[in-house]
Every structure is written in structure tokens, then in C-alpha cells.
């Protein structure tokens, strides 16, 4: 399953209450998310895509595109 970047942008939009979100947006710096928001975004993604993401990996996440790649990796790994 391939997840479009738009779907992840949308997930972030809803979670943070922001109308415009792009892949290049930096979650903490541009979008004003805090670390708990990131945890909640991950929890929503885990539920939506039936995947598991290790908390340790969250520190690597900076942009929405990073998040998209991480989710895509987990989905691919889960389906292998």
C-alpha cells in the first residue's frame, strides 16, 4: 500500500488544527507542534494504518515528509 503525502499532510492538519500543511513543513518549528502533539500524531497514524512506531524514532522526525517516509516504511515492513 502506497500512502500519498497528502494523506499525511491531512492527518497533521487535523491533529494540529492548521488549514495549510506541506511536506516541507517542519512540525516543531513551522507548525508549532510540541512533543506531545507528535506523540498524538503517531498514535493516530498507528491506529489508522495498523502499524507500530517506536518512540525512539520520533527524535529523527522533523518535517511532515519525514513522518510520511517513516509511516510508509512501517507499512511496507508490515506487509512483507
Amino acid at each position, binding site marked *: 500500500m502506497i500512502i500519498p503525502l497528502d494523506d499525511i499532510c491531512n492527518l497533521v492538519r487535523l491533529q494540529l*488544527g492548521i488549514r495549510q500543511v506541506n511536506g516541507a513543513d517542519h512540525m516543531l518549528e513551522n507548525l508549532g507542534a510540541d512533543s506531545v502533539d507528535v506523540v498524538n500524531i503517531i498514535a493516530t497514524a498507528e491506529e489508522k494504518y495498523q502499524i507500530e512506531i517506536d518512540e525512539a524514532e520520533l527524535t529523527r522526525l522533523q518535517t511532515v515528509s519525514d513522518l510520511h517516509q517513516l509511516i510508509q516504511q512501517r507499512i511496507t515492513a508490515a506487509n512483507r
Partner: protein
Amino acid sequence: MPPPDIKTLIDLLAYRAEVPAVTPAYAYLQESCTYQEMWQRINRFAAFLQSLDIQRGERVVMALPNGHDFFDAFYGVQRAGGIAVPIYPGFSPARILAMVQLSEARIVVLPSDTPPAQLAGFKAQADQRGLTLITVANAESFASGGDFPQIQPDDVAFIQYTSGSTGNPKGVQISHRNLLDNVRQMIVGMEITEADIFVSWLPVYHDMGLILKTMVPFYLATAVYLLPTSLRDIDLWLDTIQTHRATFTAAPDFAYRLVLRRITDPTAYDLSSLRVALNAAEPVRASTIQAFEAAFNLQNVMVAGYGLAEATVGVSMWKPSTPPKVDARGHVSVGRPFPHISVTILPDDQLVGDDQPVGVGEIGEIVIQSIANSRGYFNNPAATERLFWRDGAIRSGDLGYLDEDGYLYIVGRKKNIIIHAGHNVYPQEIEEVVNGVENVRYSAAVGIDRGGVEGEQVVIFAEVRGNEPTSGDSSPPTTDFENIVIDIVQAFNGRFGFRPARVYLVKPKTIPLTYNGKLQHQRLKAQFLEGRLDDNGRILFS
């Protein structure tokens, strides 16, 4: 005022039947009932119960709606020496039988107009359990005389089951003394006189509708016009106020909001006779007071009140004809406690035995000392022990604070508090914010702990307007849903400085309420965690 030797409700009603009053006891819809008629019917029902060998202190369950039957049975039981257990008449037979078991009753009273087939089915179930099922009409063949026991002030008059969000309801035991004390407290605190005219559609089988809206009028012999509890025909409420130039009505906040939504032309009604429109039994919104008074051209008539079954009912009410006090967070003050009631605020995380009240303006658990406090719950010593703090003061389970002038503000329920990052967040405050978002009709906030380091997180359920399931094949308005969620998150963040973990848009009537309109946070949380909202297709969007 009745003479001072009136020590029980039975004394009161006997006195009212003997000394002619200017008003009937009450009117239900178009039909009024005099004190003499009511007293005769009470005695007849009591004689009927004696023929069933009713014992002193025996509980009798009554599932009776607003109407004449209720008063016959409620006071007939007490006249015969029993304890009335009024319950919601809309309960299923299974639920009624569960209440019978809980109250250890043997006799169940159903409405006279129960359809025969339904009655027969219920009777079969009751017979199997050795219960006696009766209707008020069954008493008709009995004479109204009899040798009835002398009722004492400390006898329990009735048991008020609190609806409880989960688990077993608790039965608050209310004595005759409690009732008369609280009636007097309310008369003084609410400045009620013989000249007042009451209108009420509140359930007579529940404390506010029963004690404030019928016992207070009986005590003072003021006029009271009772209506069915159904709000389908909400005009009837306003019409009745207008026709009888009523001065006093009461309802929870939702009912006033319903009026504002349903009545398209408020100028068609003249409610100028109202002295008090009490808003109580659920969180009071400043916006409701403002909108209602503006719509009907009233000023300082809608007042916030507070009470609970464990203190009989009334604890405090804002002073009528005085502009309301609303704090910075939007809480409307419920005024100062009534006479012979004192309120103490304890830390809400306090250990049993700790007795240091919090300071002025600090939020904590509301503890009430009152002469009208109940002696505790029926057959539930553990809950009774938890109820009492010390010297007969009761822990309300409600959170609030007192300001520098001694005015009380209600903030929420203790058990529903959400602890987010070490700070207390009150569902009621969240709901006030979310309910203000366009297209949200109702909302609930609960705390969910997923076991991670982030601790308890706020999850919001919002019922949205105008999305009743349609038979058409129109695709769901996803963009609208997205915008609602974004609006909710923004409004929340603007108010609390952090974001909710998740917002679920749900179908109307998903959020569970008690039959008297209180939001059941714990039940909603359980339904959500058990996946029942998902399974039942209640979630529209998340």
C-alpha cells in the same frame, strides 16, 4: 406558612386538607386537584397497601410519570408507613426489576393507563419473582379510612436513586425532617412567597421537580401548574407561564437552549411575569442566560442554582433580580449557600482525614454541611462512609470554588477531571469551548491514558448538526467535517494552550445522557474504549 407543629409531609398534607387553602394542591395540564381530593386518594391508596400487608419502612417502587397517579402513590406509601422509591417511568421492565432488587422492594406501582398486554407481560415476570405488581387504579375500590401509623420526622420518606454514570445507582435516603428543612431553606434562599406561581415540566419522580416544584408549593399553598416531562411540545411550557402569569420556573440549561432553538418568534410570548427562571442540575452557560433573557426581553430572571440529592436537593441559588456573576473562565456563580448550609472547599487530591480547606479562589471538592443532609445511602455502607467527611458534612464529588465574597462557582465533577501534564483540566470547560464551534450541537471531553509517557490525553467527541443518516446516495461532506475538526482544535488550543489528542465527530445522540439530561462521561469513555462506538457506526469522522 403552616403551623410549627407540622413535622412530616403527612402532617402537612393532612393540615392542608383540613384548613381550606385558596389554591388547589396542583394542576396537571387542564385538571386541578384540591388538597381534600388528594388527601382522600392518598388515604385510599394507603388502605390498599395495608390490604397488601405493607410493613413499616418497606420500600415500594413506583415507575410513574408526571400526573395524578404519582401523588396518590408517593404519599400513599408514606401514609401507610412505607418508603417511596420513585424511579424513571421510561425504564424497561428489566431495569425496573433491577431497581426493585436494589431497593429490596416487594411491591411495584405502575401507571393506571399501562396497556393491558404490557401489564400482563410484566405481571408474569413479577409473579416469578414473588413480587406484587399494582396500578394506582387498583386502589379505587378501597375506602379512604384506615388505622395508619404515626409517621416520625426521622422516618425515611423516600429514596432518591442517583443515576450514577456507571455501575449501580445509589439510593439516597431522605427523611421527612430533611424534606421540611430543605423546603424551608429554599423558601428563604430563593425568596419564595405565597404569591409565587409555579410552572414545571420537570419530572416529579426526581428531586428538583419533586421537592422544589411540588413540596415547596404544598408547604406555602402556592399555585403550581404541572406539565408532562416531554419537551416535544415546548410551546406548552411557555404558554403555561404566559397564561397563568407564572413567577417561578426551573429547568436544566439544555431546556432553555432548546427553547431558543425551537421558538422562532420569542416576541409572541409574554414571560414578563417571571421572577425566577432557575437554571440548575447541569452546567449553566452564561451564553444561555444572556440569549434567553435577550430573546424574551427579561432582565436578571434566569439564575444559576446548585444542589444534590445527598443534601436533599437545594444548596444555593443566585439572588434573583441581581446581575449574574461570571468569572474569567465562563463559570456562572450559583450564589451563596442557603441558610444553615456551609460550603467548604477541600483539595481534590486530598487524603481521607486531611482537613485543610483550600484558599479563596482555589478549586477543590465542594463539601457541604447542612441540616438537610441525608443520613446516607440505602444498603450501601461503603458508599455512605465515603460520602461523609466529618461532623455530618458530605463530599459532593463536585469541584468548585468560593470567591472572596463567599459566592460559589461549580467547575465540574471530580471523577471526570482530566489530568493533562500535571494540570487539572475540567471536561465542562472544554465542552463549553467546543460547543461554541459552528456546527457542533453537543460535545463531551474525556481523559484517555494510552499508557505512554505523555499521560492522560484529552479526547473530544463532538456531535455535529445536520448529518442525520439520509437514504440518498450523497457522499459525506468530508471537507465540512475536516473544517469542523480544525475549528475545534484551534478553539481548544486558543483556550487551553495545548491540543487535544483526538477529535471524533459522532452522530447526534451518541453522547450518553442520563434521563434527566446529565452527560455520562464515564459511560462514554467505557463505550469508546470497548470499541462500541466504532462497532455501532457512531463515529462519522476522525
